[in-house]
């Protein structure tokens, strides 16, 4: 207990520096704006805002990226509530009751409760995060190559089995990610692999180039089909952005129940905000005395998933910070950005740079308060941004994407790669191949192969080595279990809907 407070004190010293508070504000505001724009989610937000962290020290950069991340979580529901268009899949549930509330003339209370629920979810998630990081990090310190390999296999399988779409397509996506990860000089043997004689590929493909291609430029391509969409947002009908005491009381228990649920879902690899929000909505509907009101503008049907979503984003920070393993596309992009700045999240970060690791955690406390302030009084001016038509917004996103690419390596070859990955990402989306397994395999690919080979050196090439270590065995059993579970679940679905 004392150790936690000691760590938090170290963290607060970093987090409360004026420069860091300023960046939490800027990052949170930009994240809110991008999260709010229809069709653009947190992953896109983080991907195109990476350039703003250049030249920052690692702690400030990490704090800013996190602020963008949960800012996007706050903002994500704005578009759902006002125009029934979710920014990303974790904001779909917010449409269910958020948009009916707007149609019933309750846009103000809807915007207010979603900000308040996000704040409560984020704060509860924070408390769990503070208590969970140290134990997880100290266990992870004892991991050898075998455990690391099995952990990454578990994280990858979980992402495959839990991503939307077919299991086989998930494995295909993961395989493509691994293939891309093996391009370049092999660190252990010096062999040049799969570069087709192109010198620019010898150092491998920059992870962030792929991310900008997939999450920024390909998203723009996806929106090319409906560029003439314009959304009508009438600020006069929003009214006061505030909730009555009666409404707040109605939402209090749902928010308090959904936050721990969201947090747990967030910690598990592969389970992102989408699953957390759907689970909390289903839970509240089944617990409610008036389930028939859900979908028609029930305020607790908006509050619960919002709280779950933000608690989930705190939960997702646990594996990212303590193990260095991201559990979703967005956290993978954050990991890529950090690695570029020379910060390698993981248990060693907590030992060697507690001021960075705990500084980030402490900054989230400040961030949550700042975002509540941004999203309550500034709600009405911010939703005006939804009126910017797609045909103006898309070129700007495109410009940010290409500009960010240039900053990565100052190489014109990256422009070719970004364009190709954008096209590739668009084609994969057309084939319904999910992108998160690809992204995770790409960022973990090098480490997975290295852990595999290091373990094989220790074990004299005996594959059973992975099963002899208890932690490694447990993780592999969990990985198999998630595949079996997903197959059974899918069979059940096809039995019901043949």
């Amino acid at each position, binding site marked *: 207990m004392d150790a936690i407070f000691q760590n938090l004190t170290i963290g607060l010293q970093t987090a409360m520096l004026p420069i860091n508070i300023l960046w939490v504000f800027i990052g949170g505001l930009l994240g809110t704006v991008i999260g709010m724009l229809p069709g653009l989610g947190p992953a896109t937000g983080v991907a195109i805002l990476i350039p703003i962290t*250049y030249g920052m020290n690692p702690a400030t950069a990490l704090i800013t990226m996190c602020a963008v991340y949960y800012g996007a979580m706050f903002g994500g529901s704005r578009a759902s509530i006002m125009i029934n268009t979710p920014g990303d899949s974790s904001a779909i549930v917010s449409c269910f009751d958020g948009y009916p509330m707007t149609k019933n003339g309750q846009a103000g209370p809807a915007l207010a409760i979603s900000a308040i629920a996000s704040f409560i979810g984020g704060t509860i998630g924070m408390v769990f995060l503070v208590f969970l990081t140290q134990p997880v990090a100290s266990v992870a310190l004892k991991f050898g190559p075998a455990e690391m390999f099995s952990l990454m296999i578990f994280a990858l399988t979980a992402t495959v089995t839990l991503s939307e779409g077919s299991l086989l397509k998930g494995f*295909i996506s993961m395989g493509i990610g691994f*293939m891309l990860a093996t391009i370049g000089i092999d660190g252990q*043997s010096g062999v040049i692999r*799969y570069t087709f004689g192109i010198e620019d590929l010898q150092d491998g493909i920059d992870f962030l180039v792929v991310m900008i291609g997939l999450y920024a430029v390909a998203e723009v391509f996806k929106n090319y089909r409906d560029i003439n969409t314009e959304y009508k947002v009438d600020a006069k009908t929003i009214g006061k952005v505030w909730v009555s005491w009666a409404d707040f009381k109605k939402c209090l228990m749902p928010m308090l129940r959904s936050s721990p649920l969201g947090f747990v879902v967030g910690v598990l690899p592969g389970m992102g905000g989408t699953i957390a929000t759907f689970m909390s909505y289903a839970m509240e509907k089944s617990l409610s005395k008036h389930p028939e009101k859900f979908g028609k503008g029930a305020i607790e049907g908006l509050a619960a998933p919002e709280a779950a979503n933000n608690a989930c984003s705190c939960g997702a920070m646990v594996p990212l910070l303590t193990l260095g393993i991201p559990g979703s596309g967005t956290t993978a992009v954050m990991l890529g950005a950090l690695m570029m700045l020379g910060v390698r999240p993981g248990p060693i970060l907590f030992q060697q740079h507690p001021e960075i690791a705990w500084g980030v955690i402490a900054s989230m406390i400040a961030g949550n308060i700042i975002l509540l302030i941004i999203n309550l009084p500034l709600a009405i001016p911010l939703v005006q941004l939804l009126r910017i038509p797609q045909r103006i917004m898309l070129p700007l996103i495109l*410009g940010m994407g290409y500009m960010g690419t240039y900053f990565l390596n100052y190489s014109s070859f*990256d422009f070719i790669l970004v364009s190709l990955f954008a096209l590739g990402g668009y084609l994969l989306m057309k084939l319904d191949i999910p992108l998160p397994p690809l992204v995770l395999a790409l960022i973990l690919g090098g480490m997975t192969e290295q852990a*595999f080979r290091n373990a094989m050196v220790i074990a*004299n090439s005996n594959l059973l080595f992975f099963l002899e270590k208890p932690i490694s065995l447990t993780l592999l059993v969990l990985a198999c279990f998630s595949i079996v579970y997903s197959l059974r679940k899918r069979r059940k679905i096809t039995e019901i809907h043949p």
Partner: protein
Amino acid sequence: MTKNAAAGFFALVLGAAYLIASFRLPEVTAGDEIGPKLFPIIIGVIVMLSGGALALSERRSQQQSPEAKKDLFSFRFIEERDTWVRIALTMICGIVYGLVLDWLGYVIATIIFMFFAASFINVRRHLENAIIAVSFSIVSFGAFAVLLKLSLPRGLLGFLPF
């Protein structure tokens, strides 16, 4: 071909090509005994197996319910021609932007790139697009090169003091 079958065949071909390339890698066991080949071979096999299974399961379900055959997959190159043309033009524009950036300098190259990129989306509103292009270029240059002090190529505008 349905969407799943298309994805399955795509994975089969990709996995096969990758596997062939993997087998042709040199055998080096200097660093470790496993060498640089085994891991990629496993990946290639996983992708081929998944693709094959996907294509096969699709055939089986089609035999069971022939009406599913109507659900054919295509990339809709003809129906959505506008989208594909826009994508192609954007890609070309992006690649050319990268090639001329160092020579023209950030500000000019970005204005040109943004003007064209915006014109593909915001058709025939030239003034609007010019405003987007110029303001994006100057604001981003000011933010990154002047405020954050990142080095950006000055190119033809190298004589300017900031």
